[in-house]
């Protein structure tokens, strides 16, 4: 399997960042960066990463199925994660989640028909002080209200 030169360079750097024999430590970042490029973690990618870090595909699968930010199916161009864990919940994060579902007509880990936006209900993202919080791809949005959420989603639609 081949990747873009940029990604290959990143992989090289990652694999050299750990002491000899500990290359498996590079597994998660490799999966993350590759997912960004490929849109999801494919079977082929699992085998490839396993080969490069020297573990079995099953061991890669163990790790990737544990972490919610690694996805086996392609997501929307903009992946919207709504926190409904305790701090956000106390600040109506659950209502925010319902609002998002209704507005987009999709549910947990689903993608809009045009493939632009996907939704995920997530646990604490470490943004409790600014609850309720959401995350769009790698960016955080704080103190989100239903109105602000509408604006954000409409904005994403326009960008799309």
């Amino acid at each position, binding site marked *: 399997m081949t990747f873009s030169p940029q990604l290959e360079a990143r992989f090289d750097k990652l694999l050299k960042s750990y002491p000899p024999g500990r290359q498996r430590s590079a597994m998660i970042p490799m999966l993350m960066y590759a997912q960004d490029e490929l849109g999801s973690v494919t079977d082929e990618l699992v085998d490839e990463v396993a080969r490069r870090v020297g573990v*079995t*595909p*099953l*061991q890669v*699968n*163990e790790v990737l*199925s*544990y972490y919610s930010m690694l996805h086996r199916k392609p997501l929307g161009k903009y992946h919207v994660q709504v926190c409904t864990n305790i701090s956000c919940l106390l600040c109506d994060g659950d209502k925010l989640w319902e609002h998002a579902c209704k507005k987009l007509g999709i549910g947990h880990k689903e993608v809009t028909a045009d493939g632009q936006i996907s939704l995920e209900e997530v646990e604490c993202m470490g943004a409790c002080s600014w609850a309720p919080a959401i995350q769009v791809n790698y960016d955080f949005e704080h103190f989100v209200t239903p109105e602000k959420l509408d604006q954000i989603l409409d904005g994403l639609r326009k960008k799309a």
Partner: protein
Amino acid sequence: MPDLVKLTIDGKAVQAAPGTLVIDAAKMAGIEIPAFCYYEGLTLQAACRMCLVEVEKMPKMMTACTLPVAEGMVVRTETPQVAQARKYTLEFLLTNHPLDCPVCDKGGECELQDMVFRYGAGESRYTEEKVHTPEKQFSPVVFFDAPRCILCFRCVRICNEGMGVGALGVIYRGVLSEIAPNHGDHLECDECGACIDICPVGALTSGIYRYQTRPWEMQHVGAICTHCGDGCKTTLGVRNNRIIRGNNRDHSGINGEFLCIKGRYAFDFYDHPERLQAPLVRKNGKLEEVSWSEALDTVANRFNQIRADGGTFGVIGSNHTTNEENFYLRKFAREVLATPHIDHHRTGDVTALVDALSGKTGRMATVADLYNRKAVLVLGADLAREHPLLSFQIRANYRHHQAHVYAVTPGPVREDKYAVASVRVASGGYFAALEDLRARLKAEPELVIVFDDSFKGPDVHRLVEFGESLGIPVRYICLVDYSNSRGALDMGLVPGEGGMRLDEMLAADLSALWVVGANPFKGTPGVPGSVARKARFLVVQDLFLTETAEQADVVLPAASAYEKSGTVTNTTGEVQRLKRAINTMGAKPDLEIMGFIARQMGAAGALGPWVPETVFAEIRRTVHGYDIPLPEIDTGGAAPTTPVNGRVTEAGGPRPDLIRSDHNGLFASGTLGRYSKVLNSVLEGRLDR
């Protein structure tokens, strides 16, 4: 030896070596700390929290399974706080557990059941719906019922560490975590069933045993696996004259709890529909069922006739029959039939090894040596496929003692993963490879050399010369294929002075050929009739109508290893006892069949009683090296034979060309393997994909 650490557990003064875990130190003091994930010999997991104990000066309760002893440590294992922790842990483990104990295979021997019984948690405060996922079939052998799993990781570790396969993992997280196989929805593995056996609950179940019985309805009979030459003890679970399972949970025997698919599941040939249940005699060209007395008379009369006419007998023995049977057969051939033409299919050159080591003692390695000695050199064989127990022992030796493993083989082997040196050789290249390794081998404190039929005759002598020239203590294992291949040699199923070898007998115009438990006419695969019988009268004793039996004049249905008593000798020369587990309609043990033939011939007096114990007593008196301690084997253990301390020459000179191993893989076992449903289903499953 370093000073012992002194500590107190439940008020008892305890001493333990540094590094000992509290759970083990307690065990030595007779105090049991409950545990699920802790398993002796495997890496530590600390996943279940069942082993929590109170330790003075430590703020929280500690997991006894990961805590090493320390000087002056004060541990309490039975305080109200500990009892409560155990109860809560159990309550927690039961939140999603289906509690279908009445239909669960494990019910009655389940560690979770036992713990709940002991520590309470009879009531649950959990009112939510339980998470349920349907049962999955990972392979013909392995089924997985996720809701029952308590995530102790024992299965994952035994497969990865014990088997060196790594076919199981845990995917997802939290309440959704579950065991997953290595190839999407199915397993591609050794199908050894170790994961099923080690599972404390009924989450992993076996395709062979599931829903067959309640555990307490079985009787447990210690038998010896009848497949490869490693000689694993398999404890057969028997109910109503049926074998329902094989395992070795009590760790008795040279294999501990290890078994490969053949020892654990491939006992199933015994009730194959094609199993012979009545003797057959050829009448007007066709084999017809007859009574035992008619069949025995036919054989006895004909044998006597040939004796009277001065005809020639050929006798071919078996790699599976007991020492007693082999001994009796040889005596029968030599003393009653007065023939030197006796042989069996030889699978390794033990004779050459014993000969090469003449004058030396204590040079034959045992199964235990592969676990205890500092270095092991594997020559030729792919042990994980052909000798699974030996491979397991070497792996455990590496994991527990960092043994140095050298693999010199034609192809890649499982040992490569942890070997200090892996060398690929073409046939003929062994000695060059050994010379290259000489300096490293010389530097080892001791060595066990394991070799297969790549070394025969003069090569075995050369190998022993090499071993002896290293200047370190070296022990040897000559690999042979089947459960009693070694015993067949030791009992002398080899040609006498002027005697014909197996291949010669097949081609010779004999008056009678008597084949006991072998299939010499199986021929070349795909070439029908590639071996046709020449002998004028052919008698075959076997479980099935094999290619050889099909050509016979008389076929006598024989009992399998699990249907008779006696002793067998494994590839390392260790003798173990078989105990009759079941009786099968129609078939008789080979010893009895031979005894009856002798009686009908009026020759029984010369041979003595055909009772296994009596014959074994004679073996102990007369066969070199077999004067072994009886208590050892009577209590289910193995006693190593001490081979002949002098030259052993073969009549007519050595014929290494006649020695060939079948190189059975994990899912094959010569002719016998063809009649095992479980082995066939695994093979078919592989072909389908």
